[in-house]
């Protein structure tokens, strides 16, 4: 096991900058998830960590070793691929031992290592089969076995669950988390699925356009997103963004949105005094779907919003509601038993305590004071 430090990493393909000045300090035993939309550079970064791609500028350290110029095989890493990349002509056992064969590990050690890993992943019965004779979940296990058997310093996972069906994906997700808890290895895991990112990670790296947008623990990412991109990318359904003008003075601020379809007024009173600096200017309110509730506790923490129901989408545990307010189309997640008629006029309450605000110019979150 080892920590991983990436300093000032850049990657250039011709004129295209795939990664720009990446700096990450990943601690020993940490489970870090790289997440972002396609083309954000997360897979490129993983390839660079693996040594499959050369870095254009910057350094990479594993523990106290500088691995920047080492080839993949000398970095002591293991990788699980999205396609599993099992060698089709070899049996499961041969797949698992191929790496040890290449490193000329003694046979008896190989045998013991295979037995241990097979037991850990419950693939003992599959060892003599070919990958084509395995189900998706079994292939996934074998791919993990191949990575685990070498006891590397660092594990890399490249979207390992995206080829599985929904049910299996959830199962394997839990299993990977258990495995990490048990073995305590350092893991870097790439996914585009933000639920995987939230559930698995100790810390999340949100990337976009080759730049790290935020590197923090899941709660911070969700509650205090660094900018509008992170806020919109993490969370499903997505966060609602409402542009409104800051009026009033410190201690008595009101957010107002005027449009042809009506007016939306949100009195903040003495909350969110950080907005005072924006008096007279527009800010973006970020409200997650669960920040709309049906009943107010009577405190002025909740502001009534009048809404017209557009679409009701029952998901089972919740009801997803698409509604209009003023000229906006917003999404709320409400209790499952709430089933209003479409086009009905209802009152929702916005939870002022949990919403956040973004500077529309920089798109950065305005920190609370």
């Amino acid at each position, binding site marked *: 096991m080892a920590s991983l430090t990436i300093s000032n990493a850049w990657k250039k393909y011709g004129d295209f900058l795939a990664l720009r000045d990446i700096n990450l300090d990943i601690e020993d035993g940490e489970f870090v998830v790289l997440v972002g939309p396609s083309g954000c550079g997360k897979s490129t970064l993983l390839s660079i960590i*693996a*040594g*499959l791609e050369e870095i254009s500028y910057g350094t990479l350290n594993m523990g106290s070793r500088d691995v920047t110029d080492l*080839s*993949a*095989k000398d970095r002591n*890493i*293991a*990788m699980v*691929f*999205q*396609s*599993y*990349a099992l*060698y*089709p*002509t*070899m049996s499961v056992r041969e797949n698992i031992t*191929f*790496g040890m064969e*290449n*490193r000329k590990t003694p046979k008896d050690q190989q045998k013991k290592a295979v037995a241990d890993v097979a037991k850990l992943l419950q693939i003992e019965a599959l060892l003599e089969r070919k990958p084509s004779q395995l189900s998706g979940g079994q292939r996934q296990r074998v791919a993990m076995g*191949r990575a685990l058997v070498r006891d590397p310093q660092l594990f890399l996972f490249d979207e390992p669950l995206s080829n599985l069906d929904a049910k299996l994906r959830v199962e394997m997700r839990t299993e990977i988390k258990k495995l990490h808890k048990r073995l305590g290895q350092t893991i870097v895991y790439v996914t585009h699925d933000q639920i995987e990112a939230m559930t698995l990670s100790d810390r999340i790296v949100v990337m976009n356009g080759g730049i790290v947008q935020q590197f923090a623990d899941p709660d911070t990412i969700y509650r205090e997103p660094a900018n509008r991109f992170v806020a919109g990318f993490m969370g499903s359904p997505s966060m609602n963004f409402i542009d409104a003008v800051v009026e009033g003075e410190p201690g008595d601020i009101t957010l107002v949105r005027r449009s042809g379809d009506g007016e939306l007024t949100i009195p903040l009173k003495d909350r969110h005094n950080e907005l005072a600096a924006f008096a007279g200017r527009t800010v973006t309110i970020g409200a997650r779907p669960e920040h709309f509730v049906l009943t107010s506790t009577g405190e002025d923490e909740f502001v009534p919003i009048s809404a017209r129901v557009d679409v009701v989408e029952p998901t089972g545990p919740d009801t997803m509601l698409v509604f209009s307010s003023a000229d906006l189309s917003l999404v709320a997640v409400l209790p499952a038993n709430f089933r209003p008629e479409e086009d009905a006029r209802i009152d929702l309450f916005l939870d002022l305590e949990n919403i956040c605000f973004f500077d529309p110019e920089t798109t950065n979150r305005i920190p609370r004071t």
Partner: protein
Amino acid sequence: MADAQTLPDFNRKRPFNARLLASRVLVYATLIVVGLFAIMPLAVIFLNSLRYNEDILRESFIGWPTRTTLENWDVAWSSACINASCTGVEPYFWASMLMVVPATMISTAIGLLNGFALTKWKMPFASVVFVAITIGVFLPPQVVLLPWAIALSWLGLSKSLAGLALVHIIQGTCFTTLFCRNYLINLPDDLIKAARIDGAGFFRTFWKIVVPLSPPIIIVTVIWQFTFIWNEFLFAVTFSSSDFRPITAALMSLNADDTGVSEYGFGSAAVLIAAIPPLLIYFFGGRYFVRGLTQGAVK
């Protein structure tokens, strides 16, 4: 409601359609005529190999045997004269075999290795190299005849088995590289990456991962190369001598004696003997050939 227990009548006949029937008849008639036309040369040669030469000369070149004999095959194989040495085609048959088998194997191996290096290994100017190699596919063989003659004499391999094999290995590499490169480009990159992380180098990855996955294209290139080199005539005539002559070149000077009589009987048998190896290869490998060529066409 639908009743899933009682079976419906599966034997429903389509209504009779005269136009459909007529078009079928037309299609099959055309196919049969074209098919007969295609098989005719082979049939004529085969029948002539069973006829006495005097019958062929007296009756007609194309005709059904009135008497049959297997003597032609024996003469063609072991006693017909070629350039005044009356050994039949046997030594030339084996000479061809000795040249074709190694040339086929070596050019296939080089093609596979090239294909791997061009597609799965970070090779500078891979696309330029690939284009340069495949130009050879489109170059008429007459163009390279003289350069080869000079090259072989430099190498001291003029008119030798090794020299002709070398010509075929290098000419063939253009084709095998094209085939193998197009096959291997569809091999998942992740496999090669996984092997790299597993610590396998270029040749180990090639041998343990790529070769075991390549039988379909190996079969295609072997059939192609074997048939092509075996049947090849221009190089065979140009770069051979009485010490070493492939069967295609030997057939040209096939005669019974010096009387100048056309020997259609064992001539036909000799031609068929020369055609047997590629035919066998195609009979046994043909289905792989078709499968291999279309592999990767649809995912």
